[in-house]
C-alpha cells in the first residue's frame, strides 16, 4: 500500500519539535546568555536586538531561559511518557492475558485511580515523593498509566482469542514469546497513538506542576515556572506571559499534529473480528 505523503502541517510540526529539541540539547552553544545571569538594570525589557524575547523581572534573558527550559520540558516529558508506557503496558498486558483473577483485580485498581481527578492525584503523589523534576514527572506517568493499562488490556483481550494466537499455542510456543511476537504488536497500535496524546498532555501538566512550584525548583529555567513568574508580573508587564505561553501552546499543538498522523497510519491493518461458522442452509 502506498503511503500518503506527509502533509505540510505535519512537516511544520515535526520541524518545530525537532528544532526545539535540538536547541535544548545544544543549549550551551545556542543560548545567547546564561539563563541564570541577572541584570537588575534591565528588568522586564521588551524584545530588542540584544534580547530577542526581552528580559524577565530579574533581567534574565527570556530566550535563553526558554532554550534551557526545554531540557527540563523534553526530559521530563520523556520520563512521564516512559513511566506511563512501561507501567501501563505491563499492567494492561497482565490484566488482558489473564483476565479472570489478575485482570479483574488490576482493572478495579485502575478504576479507583481514574476516579481521582488527574491533577489532584499527580499533585498528591508529587507531594508525598517530594517536589522535583523527576518525582513530578514520575507521578504524572503513574497517574496516566491506568488509562494506558485499560487500552492495552482491551487490545490484548481481543487479540488473545484470535486464531493466530491459538495456532502459536498449539505449536507449543511459550506465553512470553506469544505476547511479544503475536499479541503486543497488534494490541499496542492504539496505545502508541494514546501516548502521543499523553505526550502533549504531559507538557501541559508539567507546566502546571512547575507553575504550582512542584516541578523544577527555582531559579532553574522551566517553562512552567517562567510562566508563573510572568503571571506574577501580569499587571505591571503583561507581555511577559506571551513568550512562554505561546511556546507551550505551540509545542502541544505540534505534538498533537504528529499524534494525528500516527493515528492515521496505525489505524490501517486493524484486527478483524472473529467470524462465526458459516450457516448451513437447510431447505
Amino acid at each position, binding site marked *: 500500500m502506498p503511503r500518503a505523503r506527509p502533509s505540510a502541517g505535519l512537516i511544520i510540526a515535526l520541524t518545530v519539535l525537532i528544532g526545539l529539541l535540538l536547541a535544548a540539547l545544544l543549549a550551551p552553544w545556542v543560548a545567547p546568555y546564561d539563563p541564570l545571569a541577572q541584570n537588575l538594570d534591565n528588568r522586564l525589557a521588551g524584545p530588542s536586538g540584544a534580547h530577542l524575547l526581552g528580559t524577565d523581572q530579574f533581567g534574565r534573558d527570556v530566550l535563553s531561559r526558554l532554550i534551557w527550559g526545554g531540557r527540563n520540558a523534553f526530559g521530563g516529558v520523556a520520563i512521564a511518557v516512559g513511566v506511563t508506557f512501561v507501567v501501563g503496558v505491563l499492567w494492561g498486558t497482565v490484566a488482558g492475558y489473564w483476565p479472570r483473577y489478575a485482570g479483574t483485580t488490576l482493572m478495579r485498581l485502575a478504576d479507583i485511580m481514574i476516579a481521582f481527578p488527574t491533577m489532584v492525584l499527580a499533585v498528591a503523589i508529587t507531594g508525598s515523593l517530594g517536589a522535583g523534576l523527576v518525582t513530578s514527572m514520575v507521578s504524572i506517568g503513574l497517574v496516566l498509566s491506568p488509562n494506558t493499562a485499560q487500552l492495552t488490556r482491551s487490545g490484548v483481550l481481543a487479540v488473545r482469542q484470535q486464531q493466530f494466537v491459538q*495456532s502459536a499455542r498449539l505449536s*507449543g510456543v511459550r506465553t512470553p514469546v506469544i505476547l511479544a*511476537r*503475536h499479541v503486543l*504488536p497488534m494490541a499496542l497500535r492504539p496505545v502508541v497513538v494514546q501516548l502521543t496524546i499523553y505526550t502533549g498532555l504531559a507538557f501541559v501538566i508539567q507546566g502546571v506542576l512547575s507553575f504550582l512550584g512542584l516541578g523544577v525548583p527555582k531559579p532553574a529555567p522551566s517553562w512552567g515556572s517562567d510562566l508563573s513568574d510572568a503571571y506574577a508580573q501580569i499587571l505591571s508587564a503583561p507581555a511577559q506571559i506571551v513568550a512562554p505561553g505561546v511556546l507551550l501552546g505551540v509545542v502541544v499543538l505540534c505534538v498533537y499534529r504528529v499524534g494525528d498522523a500516527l493515528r492515521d497510519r496505525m489505524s490501517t491493518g486493524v484486527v478483524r473480528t472473529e467470524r*462465526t461458522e458459516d450457516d448451513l442452509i*437447510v431447505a
Partner: protein
Amino acid sequence: MTGDALAVEDLVVSYGNRRDPLRAVDRVTLRVARGETFGVIGESGSGKSTLVMAIAGLLPVARGRVRIAPRGGDLTDAPGSVGRDGQVQVIFQDPMLALSPSLPIWRSVAEPLAPTSFRVPTRLRARAVELLRQVGIGPELAGRGPAQLSGGQRQRVTIARAVAADAPLVMCDEPVAALDISLQAGVLRLLDDLRERNGLTYVFVSHDMTSIARLADQVGVMYLGKLVEAGPVRAVLREPRHPYTQALISAVPTVSSHARARRRALLPGEIPDARRPPSGCRFRTRCRFAQERCAVEEPVLGAGEAHQVACHFWPEIR
C-alpha cells in the same frame, strides 16, 4: 502401525457457568483409525467445531476423555495442554485470522520448528521456504505478509505450518469454507496428499457434503451436541438412516434440474436452545416421524456396528 489414532470417549464440553451450563458437546464417543479422515457434519450450533477444539485442547473437557496415539505408539490419555503436547494441530476456517498479521509468512511456518526460541532463527528460513514450496507457495512469496496473499495461498500457508509442527493428528475446521469455490478443490487435494505422504490422521469438520464425500473415510453427524449417526462415508451419505441426516443430505443444493425434482425431506424450524435441549431424542421437535417414545427415551448409538444411528424408528422410516 495399525490401530486407532484417536479415541474420544463420552466427551462433554460445556460453556458458561456451572449453574446454567451449555453442553455444546454432550457425551460424544468416536474412534478414528490411523491414517484415516473422520468427517463431522452438522448445522451451525451442532457442536462440531467445539468437538475438534476440545480434542485439540483449546477448550477444557468437562467429562469423558480424549486419547491420542503418538506416532508409532498406542492410544494413551492425552495431556491436558493446548495442542496435547504438540500432537494435535488445527487448520482453521479463515486463514486470515489464523496467521499473525504482523509476521511474514515464512516466520509463521518456521515458528513450530523452534517453538521455544524467542526469535525465529533465520537459519530455519530455508526449511520454512521448502515447506511452503511443498504446499505450492513459491519462495518469492515467503517474505510477504498474509494480507498480501490470496485466500487460497493463505490457507496453504496454514497447512504448511501444520505440517511443520509434525503433529500426527490434524483437526480441519471447515478448511475450505472461506475460500472461493475454484480454489477449494486444490486445497482439498493438497490436504489429502499430505495426509497420505506424512501419515496424518484428520478430523474434518464441514457442512459441505461434497468435500466430506471426497476426503472422509468415516463420517459422524452431529445434532445439538450429540452424535446421531456415524459410519463409513459411503453408507452414511448414500443410505442415511437418521431423519436428520436424511434432511441434511437432501438439503444439499444441486444445479441439475433432475435432482431438484427429487422430493426433499423438510427440516422445519431452527435448532433448539442448547441450554434447554428437548427431552428424549433431541431431534424430535423437528422430526417428521417423532412419536411419544421419542420424548421419553433417549436413543443411543448402537455400539459395535459399523453404521450406527441414534434413532428408535430408523428401520421403519427408511
